[in-house]
């Protein structure tokens, strides 16, 4: 008998599934989990609890029976609440019946959307640095990611000229994320208006990831590009509950956009996982229809923590792009003179502080690190002093927004 062939996954496929950034981040997370006393400035998982009224609504849904699947696009109640929210807060008009799909978190939304709108060989413009889980979605669609550089000195704002310069006949989609991950920069309204103009001129679809929309500081403004003239037909808005309402574990987000695109997304959603978890969908209804004070309450907590972090970074002489949103800071650590992976390992092993290396968000960010501030202020202050003494940076001074 011939030698047995053991099935394996092909090399091309492994390449498509490969996401170096995620691997770097998870290697560090795993190491950190095996240690004690680590202060985690890594994962973007809010430490604050899901607000009580949302948890209570979920428990009521469990008692009532949330056992049957919903429509693949989501519970009608949730889709109506989403459409009402988008109109009220974002000036975006969508059809709750055919223009909204509830997904198992924003990540699934992005994955399915990319499969729905990109054909092999198509190009998608993605600001750099980026959240690298996009990579697998794009690679699985056989599409090509074209990076658009952003710069610390502009607060990682997206320069419309840099976008337009990279448009080719194969460009189909422009991906925007504001406030951004990992940079926490925002795309300023004047730039967003120019980006809208470019999208119209070159007939591009726009994915607008607005998952951090409620987390803004220093008077930064949020503008939904889908609300601009002529943009409703070409914008797919991505949002969710994870970051605004501290609901990462519930896995519920949504996409909203033109019916032609959303029809395909709904079908993909049905094939990928039937529907979003129903208990979580009821929690989403409660989040949107319940009191919103908690959103501002949480934002203020982050604001205080952000101050602690920036003070610490300034003291050490680090620069960073002005973090006007989210709960991250993308720090320029070039003054340390270490590759970002080595730096993150050193900080974890010697200072017991977990940070994510810049290269986890794009290979050329060797001088950068992403820190999140999802821990109480005292812990963050402690993390800053640990970094300070580990790197011998005490009394450096001279840091701040670049």
């Amino acid at each position, binding site marked *: 008998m011939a030698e047995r062939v053991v099935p394996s996954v092909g090399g091309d496929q492994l390449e498509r599934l490969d996401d170096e950034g995620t691997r770097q981040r998870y290697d560090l997370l795993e190491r950190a989990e095996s240690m004690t006393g680590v202060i985690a400035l890594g994962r973007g998982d809010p430490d604050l609890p899901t607000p009580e009224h949302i948890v209570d609504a979920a428990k009521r849904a469990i008692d009532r029976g949330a056992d049957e699947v919903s429509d693949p696009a989501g519970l009608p109640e949730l889709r109506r609440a989403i459409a009402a929210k988008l109109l009220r807060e974002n000036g975006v008009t969508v059809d709750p019946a055919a223009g909204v799909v509830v997904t198992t978190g924003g990540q699934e939304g992005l994955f399915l959307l990319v499969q729905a709108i990109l054909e092999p060989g198509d190009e998608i413009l993605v600001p750099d640095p980026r959240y690298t889980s996009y990579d697998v979605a794009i690679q699985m669609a056989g599409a090509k990611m074209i990076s658009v550089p952003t710069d610390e000195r502009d607060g990682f704002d997206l320069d419309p000229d840099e976008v337009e310069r990279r448009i080719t006949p194969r460009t189909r989609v422009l991906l925007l994320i504001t406030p951004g991950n990992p940079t926490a920069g925002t795309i300023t309204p004047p730039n967003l208006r120019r980006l809208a103009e470019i999208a119209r001129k070159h007939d591009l679809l726009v994915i607008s990831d607005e998952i951090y929309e409620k987390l803004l500081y220093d008077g930064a403004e949020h503008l939904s590009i889908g609300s601009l003239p002529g943009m409703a037909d070409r914008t797919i808005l991505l949002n969710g509950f994870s970051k605004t309402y501290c609901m990462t574990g519930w896995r519920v987000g949504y996409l909203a956009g033109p019916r032609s695109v959303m029809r395909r997304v709904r079908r993909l959603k049905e094939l990928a*996982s039937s529907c979003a978890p129903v208990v979580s969908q009821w929690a989403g209804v409660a989040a949107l229809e319940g009191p919103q004070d908690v959103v501002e309450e949480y934002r203020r907590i982050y604001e205080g923590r952000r101050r602690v972090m920036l003070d610490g970074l300034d003291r050490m002489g680090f620069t960073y792009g002005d973090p006007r949103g989210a709960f991250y800071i993308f720090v320029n650590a070039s003054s340390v003179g270490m590759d970002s992976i080595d730096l993150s390992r050193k900080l974890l092993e010697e200072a017991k502080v977990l940070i994510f290396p810049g290269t986890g968000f794009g290979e050329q960010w060797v001088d950068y690190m992403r820190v999140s501030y999802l821990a109480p202020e005292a812990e963050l202050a402690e993390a800053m002093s640990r970094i300070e003494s580990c790197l011998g940076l005490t009394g450096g001074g001279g840091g701040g927004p670049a």
Partner: protein
Amino acid sequence: MSAIAREDRLHSAPAQRPRLIDLSRGRLGLATAPHVREAAKRALDDGETHYTTRPGLNPLRRAIAEKLERENGIRVHAEREVLVTCGTREAVFVALHVLLEHDDQAVVAGPAARLYRDVARLAGGTARVIPGDPADGFAVDPDAIARRLTSRTRALVLVSPSSPAGSVAAGDRLEAVAELALARGLAVLSVEKLEPFVYDGAAARSVGSLPGMAERTVTINGFSEPHGLAGWRVGYMAGPESLLGPMTQLKQAMSICSPAVSQHAALAAITGPRTPLESARALVAERRDRFFAALDTAGVRYLRPQGGYHMLVDARHANGAGGSLQRALRSARLRVGSGAAVGAPGWLPIALTSPSEVLEEAAGRLASVLAEAKGGTNDG
């Protein structure tokens, strides 16, 4: 339809029409067991609202590995070879997307839901359903499968108990399938979500437990039925690290992790009493008995399923098993799926998802429709 019949229909008030019986509804719709609900609520009270470890809660993965060893004779490493997914559907999506590259083929021992073909196509490949022989109860047919393999065939999908035919792969047949996979270097996706629903003394056996199959079998199972957790979206896949590793990467890219509250519910279900399984099994057993008796009385021919809660009614001799039969079923206020769509043309797939008395009424209506349609050619 004759002019008079049309006239009659026009004049019959909607209120007098018999109520619609949906024989295509795919889910049993059982309620989540109280201890599972309580566990889920406790997890929420304990603040389990964050991401879990990417492949799934550690205690859940351990419980799954223990279950697979105890009940299925499959040994997997709980941390490296088990992945908790958002239902079995995500598991199938992930597995086919990882295994199939452009123009690769999967073969599906059928009849089987359209899902497999649609997902394979989305992955850039194809899926060919090999329905098997009706005279043989649509049992998995290793010879027929062997004849359809090409140089691009990468995976064999085996759903057992199957749906809608309700065949259970066991004995020589299963061993022959395993030998085929070994000889041809195929990966096997073994979808076992209907595992508790086995009847008439049949015994389901996991293909992954057969010699040499551990290195090539991905076993997919879940909690939707009979734990009443369909809406919670939680299932799992288990298999060799060489396949599970890349599948875990794709799952992570798709949905990071499965919902925390649902994973806690699943943990309570898998470690809790077997009562929900037994009562779900008994519920379907009672429906089978009463529906089969009603069909027998009415003279309707059908394939007696060994498992699952779907079955096939024989409409091969009906006049126009395709469009006109569907019209006649609609007139009789029956909603029935298409046999052709699942690879069983001439057969009517029936879901035992309605109460027994409703199924009994459906049997009578089916008999009238089929009697009336008898005698013509079969265009299905």
